[in-house]
């Protein structure tokens, strides 16, 4: 996942009620925190739990990374994406706008 590209989306839409939450599925805490700091990411970053607290596979059945879900204001998952290619953020921006 190109997390810095999500920062751009977050900066663009956060004042209209848009939030970004990322979860490190592999609990690579050192690398993750360095990456977040280096790239100045300001949205919510969480660490996956272990065993029963594991959510990425147990709840969301994620088979590969990156996987993302776009959730509307009522809490319904309206879009999902597997992978993140260059240019995908434009498509994502349209989807966000359709829900705002």
């Amino acid at each position: 996942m190109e997390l810095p590209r999500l920062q751009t989306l977050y900066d663009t839409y956060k004042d209209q009620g848009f939030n970004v939450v990322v979860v490190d599925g592999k609990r690579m805490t050192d690398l993750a925190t360095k990456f977040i700091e280096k790239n100045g990411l300001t949205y919510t970053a969480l660490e996956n739990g272990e065993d029963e607290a594991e959510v990425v596979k147990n709840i969301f059945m994620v088979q590969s990374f990156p996987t993302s879900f776009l959730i509307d204001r009522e809490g319904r998952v309206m879009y999902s994406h597997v992978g993140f290619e260059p240019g995908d953020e434009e498509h994502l921006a349209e989807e966000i706008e359709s829900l705002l």
Partner: protein
Amino acid sequence: MNKILIAVGLLLALGLLGGCAKEAPVEAVDPVEQAWQAMNETYNDLETAQEKTELFESFMREFPNTAYAGRLASAVAYYRGEELDDPAGAYAILAETLAQNTDPEARYDIGTSMFPLAMELGETMDLGAVAEELAATRALNFSEMIDVADLALAHDQWELGVSYSEAALERATPEAFLADYPDDDYTAEEAAAKADRRKVMALANLGWAQWNLDLAEEAMAAFAQAAPLKTVNYLGAADTPVDLYHGKVMLAGGEAGMAMDLLAPGAIMGSDDEAMAALREAYIAEKGSETGFDEWIWTQRKGLAKEVDTFTLADYEGNPQDFAALTDGKVTLLAFWFPT
């Protein structure tokens, strides 16, 4: 690789046995290893795709006949071919490296990365030959077989698709799964589920390839065998291409309504572009025109959408964060990643 290690060990042993007690033996440094390590250190500081691919390419040009050259192939195909949108440039460096590489493992890695570029550029390339070279040295694992089948199907090489799908199907057993992952602990139940998933993937590919070779009955039998074993993702879309290929076959066979049912979950909730294109075609076949398609998709999307589960996880300061509270009344992008 083992031979090199033995040779290095022998040199060190000879140096020591030779009675060089007064002088420390000169450490044997493998220039390839040294360059690989230096490259990895440099890589961490690079920002752009251009810088990254140039670093990889300079290593490949200097050491084309190494296992490492194979490991860099997919990165060059991605960074130069996709990010820099220079498939011809990526193809050229990979073809040059392949021509100089004699290691079947590396040749397989280079070949599979190069094949889509070759097809895109209208070059001829025998993907099956590269896979067979490797198969002559060791048995291919399931992932390799299904990768070759996927590549073949993506570029209309149906016979190759059938043969590698059939080979993959033979490895769709719990025993073969466990043999592919000897270092991991899987329960019998997990291995059985993984084997079923493999079966669905192999049968889906097999059915699609057979259909394209005019083996309609065999194709329908493959889909019928896959259907009861199918598994779905969080949003209810198949997590294998079985519904995509089955739907495309239904569409081609004139069953547009059935095709729409099979294609809609993957197209709408699986972000599958191929399924969406086929779904659009099925809609036109069923309704007579494209009018109303976007509205229909939106209605389907609302029907397929599910309420997101909530959870609590810690942030990097150790504070528990309740997902429901973070998303309350907001449009939220929830992304699962890992740092590379």
